[in-house]
């Protein structure tokens, strides 16, 4: 009885949170989109927009780019997951956190870095990729290799190696054992993370605008255009609805993928082996990905942040400490913005983790009633929506809902971490679910017959797995919040700017100092995030020693 009540309460808390901070704002925007001034339902715009050829060109373009970006991320991410999470070598931890930096870099800055790299005069200019779809895809891969690697690696490191040993001794080569034994076990994690990446890629805004070839753009750019340029909420609502369809379709697909393949696995304490010569293939792929796709653009960024009028130096970094930038006499300095960012991100991380842990537990609980099971799948789908909905929609939505309801709330700065938590939630939930779903229910049963109450089973059996996955998730969540721009830019009060907003403001002004400082600030952001991620890795249950 108490347990039922407990689950019900957990669900209620999370649903209330999502309703207030996601469903209400977005719903308010969509309602404005499908009603006329008198408040009556009016779906004419849907018909108009959906019968335009341009709309389908946009859909096609979005689909193509997002699929390519996802494919690339998965192809590089899986070998990287193996190398970074399943093998041991000197510098592995450093390499891990380096690959995670892209995740927090503001997309505008990444745009600058990639253009510096791929531009006609850049080191890779000869490839002729500047302003092509391929440049966008490369940047998508840049951002998301580590996401796949981390989500998949998180599960992979806990897989019992003995099943693979059984396959090997039955005559399976490494490759065969990987494809037939390991891959099926990893499919839920691969599906979940590829689904996330697909959504990130299909809602990419700055990347497409900065790096992409001119053309019809994507659903996301169109939502921005319709909202920002025309304040045409009705048309924007149609495109937002199309985005929602995208989300639902991709979630449905990944759910199907993982539903069939989620099995209780005998998870273990993480196992790692020394890197051996047999690992040459994944190692080569990983090194290529890390060096060419991840490090090179970042080094370019670093190099440009160090550039001064006469060669190289730390001038830009010095300026960060002392000046708010050319043309910004008062206002926030970089150090202050960083402090704000960290504080906000910490708050957001706590909120995200609480909501995400509750949600993933609710979703992975084994239930008997088919109705409850269907409810779980619905919830699983619903929590993905924040990723697929454009940040302008969310940002404006906050204004017409929460802000309109209680303006002092948004001035208090409370909304920023809450909005960031909503944005980070799907990612964190998706990183917890595959691990929780893989916990063998027999373990819980063993605990129960030893007299452990459901709460104790949760704490002592699921707990260690959650804790480990939460370590990873906390790092991710923190860095997502740290780098979040879209929703934050709508909600942050001018006196309480975050670092990404500060960077974008610097980039919006002429003056060599401003540009250099923006790049330097992005480097600082990356460094802070990677430290946070390293710390996140360290949160892990130690094997308890008997005392």
């Amino acid at each position, binding site marked *: 009885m108490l347990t039922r009540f407990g689950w019900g309460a957990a669900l209620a808390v999370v649903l209330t949170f999502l309703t207030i901070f996601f469903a209400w704002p977005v719903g308010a925007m969509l309602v404005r989109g499908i009603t006329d001034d008198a408040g009556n339902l009016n779906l004419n715009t849907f018909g108009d927009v959906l019968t335009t050829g341009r709309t389908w060109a946009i859909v096609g373009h979005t689909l193509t780019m997002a699929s390519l970006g996802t494919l690339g991320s998965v192809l590089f991410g899986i070998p990287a997951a193996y190398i970074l999470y399943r093998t041991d070598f000197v510098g592995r931890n450093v390499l891990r956190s380096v690959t995670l930096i892209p995740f927090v870099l503001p997309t505008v800055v990444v745009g600058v870095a990639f253009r510096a790299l791929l*531009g006609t005069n850049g080191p890779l200019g000869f490839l002729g990729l500047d302003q092509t779809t391929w440049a966008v895809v490369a940047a998508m891969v840049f951002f998301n290799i580590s996401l796949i690697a981390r989500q998949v690696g998180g599960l992979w490191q806990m897989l019992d190696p003995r099943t693979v040993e059984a396959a090997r001794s039955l005559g399976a080569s490494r490759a065969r054992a990987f494809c037939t034994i390991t891959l099926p076990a990893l499919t839920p994690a691969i599906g979940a993370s590829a689904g996330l990446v697909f959504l990130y890629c299909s809602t990419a805004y700055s990347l497409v605008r900065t790096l992409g070839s001119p053309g019809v753009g994507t659903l996301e750019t169109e939502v921005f255009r319709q909202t920002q340029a025309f304040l045409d909420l009705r048309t924007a609502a149609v495109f937002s609805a199309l985005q929602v369809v995208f989300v639902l379709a991709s979630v449905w697909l990944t759910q199907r993928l993982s539903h069939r393949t989620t099995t209780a696995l005998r998870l273990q304490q993480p196992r790692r082996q020394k890197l051996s010569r047999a690992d040459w293939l994944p190692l080569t792929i990983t090194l290529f990905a890390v060096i060419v796709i991840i490090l090179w653009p970042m080094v370019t960024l670093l190099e440009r942040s160090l550039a001064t009028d006469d060669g190289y130096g730390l001038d830009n970094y010095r300026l960060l400490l002392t000046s708010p930038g050319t043309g910004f006499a008062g206002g926030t300095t970089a150090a202050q913005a960083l402090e704000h960012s960290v504080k906000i991100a910490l708050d957001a991380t706590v909120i995200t983790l609480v909501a995400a842990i509750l949600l993933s537990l609710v979703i992975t609980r084994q239930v008997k009633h088919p109705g409850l099971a269907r409810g779980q799948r619905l919830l699983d789908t619903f929590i993905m929506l924040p990723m697929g909905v454009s940040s302008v929609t969310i940002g404006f939505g906050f204004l017409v809902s929460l802000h309109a309801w209680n303006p002092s709330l948004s001035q208090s700065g409370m909304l920023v971490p809450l909005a960031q938590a909503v944005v980070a939630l799907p990612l964190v939930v998706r990183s917890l679910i595959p691990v929780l779903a893989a916990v063998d229910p027999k373990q819980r049963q063993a605990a129960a017959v030893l007299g452990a109450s459901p709460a104790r089973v949760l704490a002592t059996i699921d707990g260690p797995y959650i804790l480990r996955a939460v370590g990873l998730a906390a790092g991710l969540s923190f860095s997502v919040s740290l780098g979040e721009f879209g929703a934050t830019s709508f909600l942050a009060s001018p006196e309480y700017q975050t670092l990404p907003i500060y960077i974008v403001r610097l980039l919006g002004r002429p003056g060599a100092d401003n540009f250099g400082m923006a790049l330097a600030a992005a480097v600082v952001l990356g460094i802070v995030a990677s430290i946070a991620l390293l710390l996140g890795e360290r949160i892990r249950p130690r094997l308890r020693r008997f005392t």
Partner: protein
Amino acid sequence: PDATDDASQTVTVMTHDSFNVPEELVTAFEEDTGYTITTTSPGDAGAVLNQLILQQDNPTVDAVYGIDNYSAPTLLEENMLTTHDVELGGAADYTVGTDTDGHLAPIDRGQVCVNMDNAWFEDADLAPPETLADLTDPAYEGLFVTTDPTVSSPGLAFLVATATAQDDWQGYWQDLLDNGAKVASSWSDAYYSDFTSTSDGEYPLVLSYSSSPSAEEGRTSTITATCTDQVEYAGVLEEAANPEGAKAFIEFLLSTEFQASLPEEMFMYPVDDDVELPGEWEQYAQLADDPISADLTVVSENRDAWLNEWTELYENAN
């Protein structure tokens, strides 16, 4: 000040995200008047306008600052503002034509102009272009980068300028694009990735501001015949909780001290002609005397149509 009467002591202002003012000036203002200033800023001028419209029924601010000349007519039509009752002085020259009730007070101004890389043209031994029409001249093929008018405010200003100054602006743009003009997605993209003078880029002509050369110490200059006006306004909301405070704030914006801080703080020019410009501005960033001036009513009536036509034209050109 009476602590219990908080609302009347606070002035809440919505500004664009470039709003910046030296701390001392704010402190002085707050000490002089007893008001506390709170600002919110949703984004650029376009975002400010959109926000105000979205919050129409329930505005949460007393004053707005940062509405530009292309947004002004739209805002005026929404009837959200009330008379500000501020003595404008010289600033009165810049009021919106249709603003007969004194709803919008001009605060600062500037110009959007094509900037050029002086050294590049010297090295190439090429005479720089002088007019909008020159930009379609094959001699300048592939040299100009502008920004997307649908999402960038200088881009919009430039589109308006071409629509005002050219009889057949669609034809002009077709020629421009045929002549290899590039459309970047944002000002920073164009300026920091494509412009030869400030990046490794390939384009020695960039759409930027008349004030930009002041930051480049003479390496760049403006092409004056391409300049078009930008003015930014402030106003008091009809539903303001603290209209007196809002009025005091606008007076503050028009004070000599604030006006003098404008170039350093916001890269804009004062509307008060008596205020002196900083040295580099005097030297490198003079305003064009005879900028392209659009009829704001025509702009507000045609803006959406122009943007849609432009988008179609641009997308078909690729």
